[in-house]
């Protein structure tokens, strides 16, 4: 499959009174056409900053992309002017946020808001744009679109508003859709409808999606591949089966273990102790080491490189080093992996890259 996006060693920092906040510290990943990559990790791990950087939406100052390239169909977005980016945003890349009201103008009728992009990017006239808006509202499952497009956002329920945002994001058939916790504020049945809708549309348009969420159930539902972020870095990346059935990084173990499965009975949840590090002054060595019961001496001194587990699966943990002792993931994680490890190779050690 064709590569749509390639992010290489991206660093993003914010200059604050307290000093430089190193929010994203060398992130590398790629995305193919039609693919969905989920990014998971605790709040503050750099998920939103990563995706905002892709859209060149980092406020400068205080923010800056310190280093790295973002190749979108081969063009480096970090080198583009704001004017060039405006042509790409909305048309080729679109974003959906958790709170639909951050993307909607409360004083503008919903129909006009969707038409705006169509007129600007697709050079449609008003009549054409209006026709397309009705189609889009139908596509996202809003009943009676003809009369709904004359209403204001506050006349819609939370779930319906998020559908409108999805419609705006999809208006120009973007090649890349970035969804930042799009369903976190919604009830499960509404969430299920929005997720089904997004997948449906993706199938029809072959667009790629980056989906940020902290709900691992949602990840299992939407993702082809998963990137786990911790303290501004991707610590593990692989197919959805690699990550859920053969996780290698202790942080991924912690994330998976902290969610009960429906049959986990009375055992304690495997909670990750403590809280994430301060990105003003990231610790030496592996940023996760202070919270990691599996940490070794080297973790406190040297940052682990990415190790290759398989063609699709990489993790940055010294546990994959050939000299590392064999460590077993916690029992609750092993239980999940049992009988499911078929799809991914399960060698204990990886190749350093």
């Amino acid at each position: 499959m064709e590569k749509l996006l390639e992010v290489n060693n991206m660093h993003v920092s914010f200059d604050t009174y307290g000093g430089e906040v190193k929010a994203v510290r060398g992130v590398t990943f790629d995305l193919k056409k039609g693919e969905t990559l989920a990014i998971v990790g605790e709040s503050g791990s750099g998920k939103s900053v990563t995706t905002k950087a892709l859209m060149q939406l980092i406020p400068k100052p205080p923010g800056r992309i310190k280093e790295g390239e973002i190749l979108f169909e081969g063009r480096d977005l970090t080198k583009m002017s704001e004017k060039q980016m405006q042509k790409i945003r909305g048309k080729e890349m679109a974003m959906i946020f958790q709170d639909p009201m951050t993307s909607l103008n409360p004083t503008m009728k919903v129909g006009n808001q969707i038409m705006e992009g169509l007129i600007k990017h697709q050079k449609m006239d008003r009549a054409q744009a209006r026709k397309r808006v009705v189609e889009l509202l139908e596509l996202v499952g809003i009943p009676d679109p003809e009369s709904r497009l004359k209403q204001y956002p506050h006349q819609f329920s939370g779930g319906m508003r998020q559908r409108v945002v999805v419609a705006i994001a999809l208006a120009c058939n973007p090649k890349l859709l970035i969804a930042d916790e799009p369903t976190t504020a919604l009830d499960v049945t509404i969430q299920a409808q929005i997720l089904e809708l997004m997948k449906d549309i993706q199938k029809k348009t072959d667009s790629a999606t980056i989906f940020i969420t902290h709900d691992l159930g949602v990840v299992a539902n939407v993702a082809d591949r998963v990137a786990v972020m911790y303290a501004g870095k991707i610590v593990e990346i692989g197919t959805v089966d690699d990550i859920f059935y053969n996780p290698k990084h202790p942080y991924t173990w912690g994330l998976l273990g902290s969610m009960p499965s429906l049959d986990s009975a009375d055992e304690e949840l495997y909670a990750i102790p403590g809280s994430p590090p301060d990105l003003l002054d990231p610790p030496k060595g592996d940023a996760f080491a202070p919270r990691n019961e599996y940490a070794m001496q080297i973790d406190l001194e040297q940052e682990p490189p990415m190790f290759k587990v398989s063609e699709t699966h990489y993790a940055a943990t010294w546990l994959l080093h050939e000299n590392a002792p064999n460590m077993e993931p916690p029992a609750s994680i092993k239980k999940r992996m049992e009988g499911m490890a078929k799809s991914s190779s399960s060698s204990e050690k990886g190749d350093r890259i």
Partner: protein
Amino acid sequence: MSQEKLVEIKNLKQHFKTGRHSVVKAVDGLNFDIFKGETFGLVGESGCGKSTTGRTIIRLYDATDGEVIFNGENVHGKKNREDLKKFNREMQMIFQDPYASLNPRMKVEDIIAEGMDIHGLANNDKERKAKVHELLETVGLNKEHANRYPHEFSGGQRQRIGIARALAVDPSFIIADEPISALDVSIQAQVVNLLKKLQHEKGLTYLFIAHDLSMVKYISDRIGVMYFGKLVEVADADDLYNHPIHPYTQSLLSAIPLPDPDYERSRERFTYNPNNHDTSEEPEFREVRPGHWVLCTSKEFDFYKKEHATTK
């Protein structure tokens, strides 16, 4: 878990007047018991009346109708101030947003000790401090935290402070209204483990309100499902998940994504259509399987019994 009732909720109603002629029936005739030492989970989609139920039980609102019986005594009937104080001590609440519920201008020590002061539980300042320090340690913080202000803490730590405050008056019953919904997954697990540990050590009874159904299943002994102000189903946690009977519960459970890609690839979602119910009479709460109650008409009851009474 005993079968001894700690809280009995009988026909509880909370109707809010929202205009001259409009009324929101936020809670509309609830009947359920909470046993001593158990965790009763209350689930349902936003706006179905979970918080109003919790707030009415603890008397933040006066009930429109119905009774709450605590340890055999009617809470809502109480007039006497001394009796009220006793109930206030027995029942405590933990809120979703640990920040909004902690006074930002008060030191953690004073936040935690507020209830102790009201109920005169510490004889002097030294005893008060000692009790606060002990509570901080109980919830996994330390005594250095006593002199700080809420904004100096992370969300998970604030929720621990909220828990310490609730524990300060030695309650027997705690209503936790979405106590983990605002926290990160890994921090959620820490708080849930803490709540479970405290329950074991102190024999606490919980009403645990949430919309995250997998966490509710994990923490609860029994679960009640609410829909538009009414309970539609109450059962043991396992029985509810393995044999949901009311079509609304079935649809709700079928919509939850689980952290298991194989399961997700085959999960089928059902949609609930409230118009499919039998309307020949007013539905009532009926016991379809032992300990498994469903809101249904007598026709539906017969049907559910045939479908579900025997399956294991």
